[in-house]
């Protein structure tokens, strides 16, 4: 889950940097990218439980975007690795419980359990990479503005933006406080409960003080309760093509088993 202090800032900062790259994907309106991502995830998750090879063609989406978007694969892979445990932990029960032999690879029996487990892991790779790519190609600002245009409550959009903005500030304070405590505790890196409580309490008070000061600054510049964002979002034919094209592809993959077809064609044409 969440631990690792300074590393987290780097992660978030890194994703934001990626969002500021320029590429055909980055230039697409955030709404188009968000919609396509959602459709993708829905299609992936709508596959039946034992689908593994049928899902394979869908990898074209994340791969294409990573390539077109000039995204660093290493960063994404690392994040996938970090996120994997939950899916792994729950998924691993499948092979343990489902012992029906469903098919054979050569002379090896493959149980339904293993098949569904691989299906889970493939889905994991597809859905999580799609989400990471979405953020890497839009960035939090454009994403929030786009979502607001699509109906997300403004209060919530503002909330995310503020949280994001002050994540670094409060986090930095927190890390400094933690380090100063650690130094005083002569090297033992683990905080005791009491110390933790005080640390967090102090951090909370500071955070609240800061919120007060921010409010003052907002009022000083005429804040009247309404935050106005000036982010222009324009959707044109490129966006329509993007959403329409990919959606058609996803649905086609869902309806027709491309992998099977491909494999069948290969084996039929004599290897």
């Amino acid at each position, binding site marked *: 889950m969440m631990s690792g202090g300074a590393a987290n800032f780097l992660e978030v900062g890194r994703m934001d940097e990626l969002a500021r790259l320029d590429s055909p994907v980055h230039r697409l309106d955030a709404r188009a990218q968000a919609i396509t991502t959602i459709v993708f995830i829905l299609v992936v998750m709508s596959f039946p439980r034992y689908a593994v090879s049928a899902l394979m063609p869908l990898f074209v989406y994340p791969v294409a975007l990573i390539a077109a978007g000039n995204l660093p694969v290493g960063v994404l892979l690392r994040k996938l690795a970090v996120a994997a445990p939950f899916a792994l932990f729950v998924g691993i029960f499948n092979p343990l419980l489902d012992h029906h032999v469903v098919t054979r690879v050569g002379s090896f029996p493959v149980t339904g359990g293993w098949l569904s487990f691989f299906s889970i892991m493939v889905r994991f790779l597809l859905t999580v990479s799609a989400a990471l790519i979405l953020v890497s190609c839009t960035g939090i600002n454009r994403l929030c503005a786009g979502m607001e245009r699509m109906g997300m409550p403004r209060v919530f959009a503002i909330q995310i933006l*503020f949280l994001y903005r002050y994540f670094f500030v409060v986090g930095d304070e927190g890390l400094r406080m933690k380090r100063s405590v650690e130094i005083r505790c002569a090297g033992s890196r683990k905080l005791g409960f009491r110390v933790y409580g005080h640390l967090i309490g102090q951090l909370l008070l500071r955070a609240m003080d800061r919120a007060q000061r921010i409010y003052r600054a907002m*009022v000083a510049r*005429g804040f009247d309760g309404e935050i*106005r964002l000036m982010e222009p979002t324009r959707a044109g034919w490129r966006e329509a093509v993007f959403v329409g094209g990919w959606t058609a592809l996803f649905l086609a993959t869902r309806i027709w088993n491309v992998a099977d077809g491909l494999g069948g064609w290969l084996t039929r044409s004599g290897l």
Partner: protein
Amino acid sequence: MSHHVVEVKDLAFAYPDGTEALRGVSFRITHGECVAVIGGNGAGKSTLLQHLNGYLMPERGDVRVGDFSLTRETAPMVRRSVGMVFQDPDDQLFMPTVFDDVAFGPLNIGLSAGEVEERAMAALERVGMAHLRGRPPYKLSAGEKRAVAIATVLSGLPDVLVMDEPSSNLDPRGRRRLIELLRTFEHTRIIATHDLELVVEICPRVILLDHGQVMADGATVEILGDEALMLRHGLEKPHSLRHRHPH
């Protein structure tokens, strides 16, 4: 051209917990002056500043900015004439990008998108930060943050600039840039600061506060050069005045 005078008469204020922060402060600042407000911690500087842009209301006495005497009703008007730069730029840069922050003030007044763009870019250019318009605030250096913070109030076209410790946390170069920038402004400038060297450089006039009262109000060289006075009120004579010979 209207008066743009900042006039404070017998201002008194106590916080809810009883602390009497101001006990009858009076002064008059005319348009274009650059005045430093100095004093030890707890002297009342912050409280005074918070009255100047209408965040706090006087308990007793009067605060007048330009045409408006400060009341709850006139506070929004007062805030339009006074641009307040806070001590910690992070408190002041709360929007997703630099441009958003500088546009915040004009947008709140209700200007059109074109006018907002014009004002915002003019303000950014004034402080030399136009190239950073798309940058998120957490990616700025301390000096850049400070400059952008100033831009966020400049875009509101204030008559008076009030600044709280503007040179704090700046490296020498950043500080130098700030001093040069402030020197070029034509606004009325009221600067609360511990940086007495800055005061010597750009503020001809100084108001010395202690215990919520004005202890001295006059020429910088005279007041800051009075070592006994400075020491008496928790300050000291700045180094640059130690070796000055009166002409």
